[in-house]
């Protein structure tokens, strides 16, 4: 079964991880972008990561996409700390230096739109770690994120060193799904109305 969809965005696409991606992912993690993140030495860990990407998506704990431009993997989009009942998740993008902010932004938006639509998620978090590219913060606010907190020394960058973390959140202004019987609340629970062939109008027939 497939739990992670392939999604297109302007200039590229995101798609599920496969075992064939191990070499490209290994290349990606030779240039880690988080402060203190170690260069990956063992490819076996990536085989395990592909397995995990399937398990996490199947159990709604997280989702990982390979980010492709011109058929080459130049990044990854990850949703983690996914809380289905609380309608929120954290997001992260890892990219090679050639991944532009525009591509990063477009990929992130595509994944958020999917998770909001499919799983009714309405609160997306993103943590910018001191030492990362400053322009990522601007990209996030341009996407609609707002700074929620400055978390002191919340990221460990070395044996005895820590970095501040700026947390951003994007809370969508949309109704929350409400549990109900078939046909009830069909404007916000379109999947509940099995009689509706076209769900684009909220399930109303």
């Amino acid at each position, binding site marked *: 079964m497939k739990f992670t969809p392939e999604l297109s965005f302007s200039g590229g696409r995101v798609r599920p991880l496969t075992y064939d991606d191990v070499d490209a992912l290994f290349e990606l993690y030779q240039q880690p972008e988080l402060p203190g993140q170690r260069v990956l030495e063992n490819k076996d860990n990536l085989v395990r990561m592909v397995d995990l990407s399937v398990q996490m998506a199947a159990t709604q704990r997280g989702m990982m996409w390979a980010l492709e431009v011109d058929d080459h993997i130049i990044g990854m989009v990850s949703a983690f700390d996914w809380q289905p009942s*609380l309608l929120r998740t954290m997001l992260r993008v890892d990219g090679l230096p050639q991944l532009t902010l525009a591509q990063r932004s477009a990929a992130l938006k595509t994944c958020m739109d999917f998770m909001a639509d499919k799983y009714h998620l309405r609160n997306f*978090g993103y943590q910018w770690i001191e030492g990362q590219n400053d322009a990522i913060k601007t990209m996030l606010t341009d996407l609609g994120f707002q700074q929620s907190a*400055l*978390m*002191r020394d919340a990221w460990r960058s070395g044996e005895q060193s820590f970095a501040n973390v700026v947390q951003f959140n994007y*809370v969508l202004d949309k109704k929350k799904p409400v549990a109900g019987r078939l046909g009830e609340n069909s404007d916000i629970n379109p999947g509940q109305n099995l009689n509706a062939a076209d769900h684009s109008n909220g399930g109303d027939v």
Partner: protein
Amino acid sequence: MNWNFPAGNFTLRLPLVDQDGAALYDLLKEQTRVDHIPRLAMSVEAQALDELRRMAMRFETREAAFWLVEGAYDQQLLARIGIQKINWMLSSAQLQWELSDAADLPVLQEIMPAVLNFCFAELGLHRIEMRLRAGSEPHETLLQQLGFHYEGCLPAQVEYNDSSVDMALYSFLASDRD
């Protein structure tokens, strides 16, 4: 490692499943004592037994540690204070407390330095944070009086009583003791 320790006129000890149910229920049956988490108060004593078992399981995996705070002489339960979501990689943990009416600022000024010292010196943690429902008084004032720093407000973190609850974030670092 001894996880039980004294703090001035008080003692902090790990709970005992077969012994502390009644006292814990007395503490946690009042809604005002758990509103800041936010959580519903206990309504039957069996919930306290269940909570004690959960605490024991979470402690076994070193994911959390909860202490019962008692008067050193009268052995009366004043509060439950714990750390949870211990992240040994990031050297951080989340603090949680439920306070009786007797656990005011002077009492906490005796207890909290011992708790924080234990977390930093014995456990090797670097950052202790507390997340609580935004606008929770007097807890937010107490945290500030105890030296915690306000870091911001995380929106829509918890669904409680049909509402999305924003959580205020406070922290205390090992270096804040200097």
